[in-house]
Every structure is written in C-alpha cells, then in structure tokens.
C-alpha cells in the first residue's frame, strides 16, 4: 500500500477523530514496506489501540513493522493485548519499553521461557506471609520492593531466571526478607524504652530512625549504610530461623556468575559493603580501609543483637568514610533487600497505632467496668492526643511495666498494668494489643491506660455523629407502632421509617476484601455448593426405603426380653429442596464505627459470594436514624436484585451514621419479608449490642420494644436471628432476642469467618 491509501484507511479507522496530518503520515509510512496482508493485520489493531491511547497507537505503528519481523501476523493481536496490559498497568513509558523488546518481553514468555507474574504467586505467597508473621500483613505488586510494615510490596513480575521455579523462589525470598525487616523491628527501632514516653501523641511521632538518619550531613549515605547493616543482621536471623530458604539462596548465588546474573540479585550483603568504597578503589592505602570495614561488618554479622547495633555501626562506618574522605556514589540495593521507605512506615504505623489504641482503651475500659475498679477512681477522660496529659493527675497512679521476651525480634512482650497499686489482670486480647503497640512504639504509653480509666469512669457513652448528608427518600414514610412495656400496649403510629438509597462512596474495599479472604471464599463456594440440595438418611422411621437393621435387631431382642418392640424400623432418604428467602438487616449506628463496621461489611461480602452459589434469595438493608420520626432504612440489595457492581459499591459504602432504633427497622423488614412466598423466611440482624436512640428509646424500653418486634416477626412466620458483636456476655441479650434466636460474637474479627457458617447451619 502506498502512503496515501494508508493514510486514508487510517482516517476511516479512527473517525470521527481527525488527528494531525503529519503525525499520521509519520506513523503510517512505516507500514509501506509491509506486504498487503501484513499491512492489513497491522491496521486492524488500530481500532483496538486508538480508543485507549492515541500516542500509544502512533508508537505502535512505528514499531509494528519490526515486530512483524519477529513473529507471524497471527500473534499480532496477542502482542497488542499484552502491550495494552502494560499500558493500563504502568502507563505509556512501560508500554513503549514493552514494545521495544519483542524478543525478551513477548516471545520468551510466549515460548514459556521465563518470567513469573505476581498473579501467579499471589495465591501461595499471601498465606505464606501470613503464616510467617502470624498477622494479617498484605501483599501487593509495586515498581519497587519495600515494606511499610503493613504491606509487603514485590515486583509485578520476576524474569531473572530461565527456570520459573527459581523466579518463584525469588519472590518468596523477597517476601521473607521484607517480613524479616518487620519482625526484627528494623524500621521501628527506638532508642530506649525510657525516653520520650510522655508528652505528645506517640502515634504521629516521627520514627526515631528518621531522626537518626537525618542527623547525618549525608542522610542518603547513612540510610544506605544502616539498611545494609540491617540486611546483614536480618540475614543472620533468617539463617537460623529459615535454614531451608537460605540454603537455596546460597545455591543460587553460587551459580550467579555462571548464569550471568547482576550482582544485586543474590550477593551476600556483607560483600556488598565493598561497593560503598567504590570510588576509593584506586587509592593504594585503601585495602586496609576495606579490610577494617569488612571486619567490622563481619563482626556485626555474627554479633549484632538489635537494630540499635546497626545504628551504632552506621555511625562508625560513616565516620570512617568521612575521615578517609571516601566519596559516596549511591549503591544499588540488593534486589531482595529492596528500599527503605520510612515515610511509608510512619504512615502505616500511625494507622495501626490509632486502631490498636482505640481497641485497647475500649477493651481496658470495659474490663475495668466489669471488675468494678472504675467507680472509685473515676477521672475525666483524657484524650491520648492531649498534650502532656499527666497520667496521675486525679490521684490515679498508673504504672505500666513492659517486658520484652525476645530482644532479637522485639515481639511478644508481656505488659503488666498497675492502677492505684492494684495489678490489672489483662486478658489475651489486651495482651495482644499491648504487644503490637510495643512492637510499633518500643514502649507502652501510660496515657492509654489513664484514658481507659477515664472512659470507664464516665460510663462509656457512644458519641453522637455530626449532621449526616442525607440522601433523598425512596418512598414516603412508612408508619409503625411502637411497644411500650410500661403500659403493655402499643404507642400507635409512633415511628416513621424512610427508605433511602445509601450515599455511595468510592473505595478499594471490595477488591481488597476479596483478596484478603480469597482462600476462604474459595472454600465457602465449595461448601455452599454442596448445600444446593441436600440428601440424607434418617433412621428409625415408621416407613421408608430400606430396613434399619440395627433397629430391627434391637426390637427383636426387646420383644424376646418381654418389652414392647419398636415399630420404627425403616430408613428413609430425604431430599431437601431449599426455597429460602433471607433479609439481612445491618446496624449502621455510630457505635459500629471502626472494626465492627469493617467486619460487618466483610461478612456481607463473604455471604454474598457464598449465597450466589447456593442460589437462595437474599436482600440486604442497613438502618440507623434519629428519634422516632426518622429511622432511615437504606437499600443495599432488594431480594431479587442481581448481585452486581452497584450492589458491591453499596456494600462498600456502608458506614456508621446515627442511632439504633431497632424496633421500627425490624418491623419494616418484617413487612418486606411478609410479602415473600418461601418455605423458609429468615430475618438476620447484624448489630453491636444495645438498641438506643437519642431520645428516651434506651434501656428497658428499647429492649422490650425490640423483643416485641421480634415476636411480631415470628408471629408472621418469619424466623428472626440476631448476630451481635459484643465482647462481653450481656445478660439482657438472651431476653431481648430469645435464647435460641441469637448468637454473640466476642471478637469482631471472627465475624467474617463465622457468619457464613452460621448461615449454613441456620438453613440446613
């Protein structure tokens, strides 16, 4: 084809767009050398690429001719797809780079030669990481390897080795090292437990390490030295902890040279120190300098006990380099070592601390309330972020004694708390939280304890939320009666329920949850699949498909012994058809703020995934409100609405709002279910404890109204079931829900795991 026809074809392909004439000419003239057929195939892809990116399309036209020298036209669309993948994941530059090396990027993997993408290892490495750490660390792909101490970031792909098993191993090596930096407190090291423990809010504090590194004239050098020394220390730790892994690492480095791998792949960290003196290599006296530093590093390898030792040696080495006037050219980190990102660590740490502080204060306050210690020592709550909150202000003497069991990894500390000379017996949960706080901060802030004492003293009332932006109503208000136990009758037409759409928010909640529970969802699907229809044998029936031999023999023997023989002698096979409709009613009151709300949402995700398999009809609504005239009833999923993106987005948007007037919400859900024709109709409530509204809807009144609403549901032939997330057994719950109709979950983290199981048992 000549350039004119090519241009014309191009314009028709991209119409109604009219790109610049020269650009088009410059791009399509590359195609002129191709034969008719190849040219057509090449042009065919224009319609695929153009809408994605115009620049990419022009780049494509410039490279496609040489690409078609490497592979047949049949492979073209696959190559284009991979290019678009790159573009969408990492942008234009990456896509250009990808197109530039057809052989390495496209053909080698196509021939199955090498390269393992993150996708392929995620499924095995996430549980591996969690097993290693015993906590819920996340794993994600990224351009650089590092960890912020909550997530471990690994490459999008590893193509270093021709054998994929080695590439997979290398992923594992990276993950393990990054975990080890966390486990050894490499980034969260703190000078000493004693200093700076009172005063400002510790959760937003600078990392000690950051200050340390910034105190050097060349922070880059100090940071690199420190990171390398920590890598040396961590390597020793891994040698003893995971010998199998390190053995394989060594065997890879033995082959390093023969395989022509870059030094940064598998070098021993100790050897790497040499490169810091690179620029000095030409000077004669330097061999001794090398020797001296290497000897120090070698000693460090065998003797370092804590990250503080690395900090000390950093200072020494820095001084030596300074004195010897060694010029530092930045040394590339080892691949598995990754980079150190202290700002990321600080951010992640403060998020984590915030959560654990809230949980700790809450749990301790509840514990104190239960133990009745709060009454006598009540003080006003001191927010932990309050400046200089002296813990012993109002005569409450708080002593916190934290003991680290293992100096090497700083994990597993035991905390002993003494309030007014009385030792508080911490439960497992509090110990775990305290231990996580210590591993982040290096000490335990006493303010947390005084806040808890204060909160316990105040009787711990949840905070009313500020004005919420309200969505429009879907229908006019629906009016319900409310039960007044004092007069043993209804207050007529007392409450308004308003159906509303849930205000949508954007977040990555859904994909993250799917990822987090990936394994469980997989298992759930399988379990729920088995539930679709169930068959089982029931024994000792009056009639049936087969004789129950055991029963027959027993009845013969009984009759010989002169007893009346039983006539239940048959086994019957029973097929159970499902035909179940269920409504989930979710408490969106302010008190669910934080973990409870998260857990409820996660449970809904798991449930939806499972219910889609089993095929039961299900709907989801949320409720919250303020006073009797406004109980908001948020639509998340109607009974027969398909489970689609919008539903997912609504689930993600469930957020704490105002108060919990249970009764009207239950009555409205009952009304909705009453219209449904199913063998089993279930109404499952998910909440966090007591019903309570802003007005006098609290205490016994609220409990009795809730109880009555549940009785009304039962009378309508609906099975209500209530799931409460509450750390402590509450005596009123059994009465409110009726002892068989509820389950209490003491640890909110268990909710997502138990929820589908509860459902399964309920409906089986």
């Amino acid at each position: 084809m000549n350039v004119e026809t090519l241009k014309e074809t191009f314009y028709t392909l991209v119409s109604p767009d009219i790109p610049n004439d020269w650009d088009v000419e410059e791009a399509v003239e590359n195609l002129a050398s191709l034969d008719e057929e190849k040219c057509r195939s090449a042009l065919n892809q224009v319609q695929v690429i153009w809408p994605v990116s115009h620049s990419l399309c022009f780049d494509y036209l410039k490279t496609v001719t040489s690409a078609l020298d490497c592979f047949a036209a049949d492979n073209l669309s696959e190559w284009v797809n991979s290019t678009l993948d790159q573009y969408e994941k990492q942008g234009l530059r990456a896509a250009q780079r990808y197109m530039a090396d057809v052989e390495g990027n496209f053909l080698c993997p196509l021939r199955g030669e090498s390269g393992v993408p993150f996708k392929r290892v995620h499924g095995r490495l996430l549980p591996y990481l969690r097993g290693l750490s015993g906590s819920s660390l996340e794993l994600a792909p990224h351009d650089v390897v590092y960890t912020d101490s909550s997530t471990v970031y690994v490459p999008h792909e590893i193509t270093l080795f021709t054998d994929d098993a080695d590439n997979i191993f290398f992923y594992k090596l990276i993950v393990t090292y990054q975990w080890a930096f966390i486990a050894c407190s490499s980034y969260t090291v703190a000078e000493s437990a004693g200093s700076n423990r009172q005063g400002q809010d510790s959760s937003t504090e600078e990392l000690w390490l950051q200050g340390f590194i910034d105190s050097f004239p060349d922070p880059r050098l100090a940071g690199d030295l420190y990171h390398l020394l920590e890598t040396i220390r961590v390597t020793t730790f891994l040698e003893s902890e995971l010998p199998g892994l390190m053995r394989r690492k060594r065997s890879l480095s033995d082959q390093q040279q023969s395989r022509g791998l870059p030094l940064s792949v598998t070098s021993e960290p100790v050897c790497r120190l040499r490169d810091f003196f690179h620029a000095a290599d030409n000077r004669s006296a330097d061999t001794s300098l090398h020797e001296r530093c290497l000897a120090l590093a070698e000693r460090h390898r065998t003797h370092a006990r804590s990250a503080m030792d690395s900090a000390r040696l950093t200072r020494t080495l820095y001084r030596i380099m300074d004195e010897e006037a060694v010029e530092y050219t930045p040394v590339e980190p080892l691949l598995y070592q990754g980079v150190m990102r202290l700002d990321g660590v600080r951010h992640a740490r403060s998020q984590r601390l915030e959560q654990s502080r809230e949980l700790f204060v809450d749990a301790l306050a509840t514990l104190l309330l239960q133990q009745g210690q709060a009454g006598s020592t009540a003080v006003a709550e001191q927010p932990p972020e309050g400046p200089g909150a002296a813990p012993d202000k109002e005569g409450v003497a708080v002593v916190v004694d934290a003991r680290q069991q293992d100096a090497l990894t700083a994990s597993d500390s035991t905390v002993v708390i003494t309030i007014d000379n009385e030792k508080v017996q911490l439960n497992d949960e509090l110990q775990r939280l305290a231990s996580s706080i210590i591993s982040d901060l290096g000490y335990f802030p006493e303010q947390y304890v005084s806040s808890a004492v204060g909160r316990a003293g105040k009787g711990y009332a949840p905070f009313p939320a500020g004005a919420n932006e309200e969505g429009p109503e879907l229908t006019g208000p629906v009016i319900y009666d409310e039960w007044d136990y004092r007069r043993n009758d209804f207050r007529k037409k007392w409450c308004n329920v308003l159906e509303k759409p849930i205000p949508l928010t954007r977040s990555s909640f859904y994909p993250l949850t799917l990822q987090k529970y990936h394994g469980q969802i997989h298992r759930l699907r399988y379990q729920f699949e088995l539930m679709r229809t169930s068959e089982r044998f029931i024994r000792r029936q009056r009639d049936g498909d087969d004789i129950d031999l055991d029963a027959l023999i027993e009845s013969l023997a009984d009759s010989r012994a002169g007893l009346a023989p039983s006539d239940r002698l048959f086994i019957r096979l029973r097929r159970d058809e499902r035909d179940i409709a269920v409504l989930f009613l979710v408490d969106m009151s302010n008190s669910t703020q934080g973990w409870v709300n998260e857990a409820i949402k996660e449970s809904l995700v798991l449930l939806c995934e499972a219910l889609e398999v089993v095929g039961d009809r299900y709907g989801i609504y949320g409720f919250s409100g303020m006073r009797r005239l406004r109980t908001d009833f948020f639509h998340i999923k109607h009974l027969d609405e398909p489970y689609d993106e919008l539903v997912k987005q609504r689930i993600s948007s469930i957020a704490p709002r105002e108060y919990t007037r249970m009764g009207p919400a239950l009555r409205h859900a009952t009304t909705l279910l009453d219209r449904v024709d199913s063998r089993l109709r279930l109404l499952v409530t998910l909440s966090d404890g007591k019903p309570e509204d802003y007005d006098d809807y609290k205490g016994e009144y609220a409990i009795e109204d809730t109880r009555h609403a549940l009785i009304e549901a039962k009378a309508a032939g609906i099975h209500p079931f209530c799931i409460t997330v509450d750390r402590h057994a509450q005596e009123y719950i059994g009465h409110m829900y009726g002892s068989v109709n509820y389950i209490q979950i003491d640890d909110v983290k268990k909710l997502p795991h138990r929820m589908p199981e509860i459902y399964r048992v309920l409906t089986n």
Partner: protein
Amino acid sequence: MKRNMRLEEHRIEQEPFYMPLGPEVKLAEAAYITGLPILLKGPTGCGKTRFMQYMAWKLDRPLITVSCHDDLSTSDLVGRYLIRAGEAVWTDGPLTLAVRSGAICYLDEIVEARKDTTVVIHPLADDRRELPIEKRGELLVAPPEFMLAVSYNPGYQSVIKDLKPSTRQRFVALAFDYPGADAEAEIVARESGISDSLARSLVKLAAMTRGLKDSGLPEGASTRLLIQAGKLMENGIDVRTACNNAVTEALTDDRELLQAIDEMVSSVF
C-alpha cells in the same frame, strides 16, 4: 467375672508420658475427689486423650473411651438386649460398664453426638450421679470411683452443635491448647524419636500453619501431626516428603494453601 475381663483391658499398666502444661493434673484430681465431671476443650491433637490416659493411670482406674459420632444412640452408650442362643441377653454399654465398675468414662468429641443421645449423661453429671437404664427398669448409682469426662473442640463446631449450657455448666472445664514451643518440641522429640533440632523446626512449621486462620485454614498442624511427621522421618523418609505427607496434605486440599504450606516447609527445612 466376664465383666471383669472386659474391664481389665481398659486398665493402663504403664505410666503414659504426659507433660503437664498447667495445673490440669491437680484440677482433675480435685474434681475426681469431689465427684465432679470434667470437660476438656481444645483443638484436636493437643493432648486431651493422652491426658485422660495419664489421669486413669494416676488414679488407678480403668479408662473407657467412646468416640462420639452422628449415629451414636443411647443404646450404644447404655446397653441393649442381644439375642444369644435364642435368648435375649442384656449387654452393658460402655457407659453403664464404667458406672457399674467405677471406671473413668471418656466421651471424646461429645458434640458430634446428637442431643437426644447426650441427655443420658445429665443425671450422671450432676450431684445425683445416677444412670437410669430404662429398658431394664434399673437405676444405677455411680460409686465414688466413677468419673465422667467429655471433650470437645470449640474450633470447628458449628454454632448449633455447641454444647447446651445446661449440660456444660455441670462440668469442671479444663482448657487445652497446643503446648508452648519448648514443651511441644520436647514432646515431639520424645514421642517420635527425632532430634531436638528437627523437632524444633517442626514446631516452627506448625506455628506458621496455625497463623492461617484468616487465609482459609481453620486449624493448623496439631502436635499429633508433628509426631506423625517425626515418626516418618525416623523411619527413613526424607524430611520434605515426611512433611508433605504427614502435614501439608493432611491439612488441606486447597491448591494455593498447599503451595503456601509447601513454601513454609522448604523455608524451614
């Protein structure tokens, strides 16, 4: 006469190896003296059965163990008429046998049994300490030597199967869990014969698998699995294969979890 022969099989002559992990031995002894039943709860393979064997030896009582299951009926526990040479002969079930002869009756995994079966233990578990045998119109009163022990695993029981409060409140509850790392390594080394360092590595592996609750593995490797892996190793199976067969494959069928545990094995060993 006949009964005694059956009973003798249940006597434990040799001291079983049991490493106490807390005050459980003292507590169980106190419960025995006071005539209270005991409830052992904890994950599978953490030493509950071994503990009962040890207690039976220490208290010098026969130990009659019943593994509970779905199909277990009251007659299976209490006894039934059988036909021998054309005649109906009453045969005691294991529970009745234990009550009559003052033995220890251990109902393993009690929640696996149906509710209508487990009601027979109610009058035995409270201060009446008696067992009605309806078919014979007999009411057995347990001698002081009789002890009732039941076990259950709170981990994987479904909600509905949870023990009824009215039943469980009659028991002295002893909570079991996997031993601490040092103790567990010692148990594994001792029971399987492998070296201390190998045992430690096995324990490390177990700890990792026990951290997979959120990833779809409700129960990690138990002490029992570790001992089995150790035994395979002692019998010449190489470490990786032993772990693969005794631990990894025993824990899950999920492909990705299998791979993950495999990666743990290859890191640890």
